[in-house]
């Protein structure tokens, strides 16, 4: 008790803060996905401000080229897992913080299980595929998402509250962009990432302590070379908007609509999950894992309606876009939320 009072005194005396806000931090559970350039500084500030429970997800191994910006790690840590070492370095800052290390990559199979145990998710990852997975699962679970990203001397910061508006990353960039430069091509400077990761920690703190000036379904662009910033309000994209990239309409089915397609002779139901994924469905469908969909396209009948499904609706959306963009299928839809939604209704 006394330790916490002394420990957090400098922040509890801030305006609009106090013991109430501190208690909210102590009671909260935050999942930081990515312990790299953004994750390292973010984690330092989240632990030190008194977040009660922190999860760290990262399957990466520490490399010498990381050390110029991933500031939790030292030369002696090269070759070790980032999540495990991050926990090592953080655990003595505030010993009563519960830190859980997840030394593997987040993916479709573990994402729901991981994210459902936390109140807030901070996206400190470095690729679009993972970012969209995190976004989609957070939207699914209504878990607020603190998005941060970097390009050279610039940064992007967004808070998606996942409230009734359901505004999320896809209302900014509807599809995972194809062109992305990873930092080994674009370059990255530690100080810039330090600022962006710290901003992510700050927005997480604002959200948990309910500050009125936190980003609210808004995205902030920062040019840290020229000190130019722009704060943008995001509004919900119309549900029947055509995809700006291809002009095709993305058709989501809810569970009721999906059930209506079962045993329909004019419909082909395609399970794009991997062979080992269970539970298998109890209705007739064609199983074509997404990685081998292209070479098995002949199994699909363009005259029929194609309905795709996967675990939570991320791969089936990818499959839908593939069929539309590369193979010109006109009658494709997918099960929004994945087959997990179907099973939960049975």
């Amino acid at each position, binding site marked *: 008790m006394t330790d916490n009072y002394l420990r957090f005194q400098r922040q509890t005396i801030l305006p609009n803060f106090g013991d109430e806000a501190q208690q909210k931090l102590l009671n909260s559970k935050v999942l930081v996905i*990515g312990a*790299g*350039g*953004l*994750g390292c500084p973010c984690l330092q500030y989240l632990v030190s401000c008194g977040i009660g429970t922190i999860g760290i997800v990262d399957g990466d191994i520490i490399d010498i080229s990381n050390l110029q910006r991933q500031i939790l790690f030292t030369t002696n840590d090269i070759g070790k897992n980032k999540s495990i070492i991050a926990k090592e370095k953080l655990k003595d800052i505030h010993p009563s913080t519960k830190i859980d290390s997840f030394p593997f990559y987040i993916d479709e199979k573990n994402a729901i299980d991981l994210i459902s145990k936390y109140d807030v998710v901070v*996206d*400190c*990852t*470095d*690729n*679009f595929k993972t*970012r969209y997975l995190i976004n989609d699962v957070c939207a699914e679970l209504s878990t607020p998402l603190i998005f*941060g*990203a*970097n*390009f050279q001397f*610039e*940064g*992007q910061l967004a808070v998606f509250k996942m409230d009734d508006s359901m505004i999320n990353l896809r*209302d*900014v*960039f509807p599809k995972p*962009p*194809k*062109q*992305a*430069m*990873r*930092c080994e091509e*674009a370059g*990255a400077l530690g100080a810039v*990432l330090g600022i962006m990761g710290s901003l992510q920690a700050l927005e997480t703190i604002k959200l948990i302590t309910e500050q009125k000036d936190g980003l609210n379904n808004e*995205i902030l*662009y920062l*040019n840290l070379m*020229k000190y*130019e910033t*722009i*704060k*943008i*309000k*995001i*509004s919900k*994209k*119309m549900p029947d*908007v055509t995809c*700006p*990239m291809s002009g095709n309409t993305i058709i989501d089915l809810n569970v009721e609509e999906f059930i209506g397609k079962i045993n329909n002779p004019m419909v082909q139901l395609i399970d794009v999950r991997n062979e080992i994924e269970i539970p298998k469905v109890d209705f007739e469908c064609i199983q074509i894992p997404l990685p081998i969909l292209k070479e098995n396209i002949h199994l699909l009948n363009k005259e029929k309606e194609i309905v795709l499904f996967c675990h939570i609706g991320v791969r089936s959306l990818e499959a839908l876009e593939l069929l539309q963009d590369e193979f010109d299928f006109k009658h494709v839809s997918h099960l929004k939320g994945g087959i997990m939604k179907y099973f939960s209704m049975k």
Partner: protein
Amino acid sequence: MSNKITIKLFGNLSELVNTHEILIDFKSTFFELKAELFLQFPMFENKEFVFAIDQKLIHENILINQNAEIALLPPFSGG
């Protein structure tokens, strides 16, 4: 003499033209302005970004006024 409007560039877009701000001829609707942008800067046409006008993301055709603040925002993924 035509009116010009300023457009702020973020991310890899500013690299393409070596500046963080460009000037194009003012057009009073979003779609016309977009067309004018690609006419004067064809290298932007296959780049991925969204438009923000007066601090709001814009996808549909709207009227634009002379003093509008316009920015082109590409996606970032680095972390």
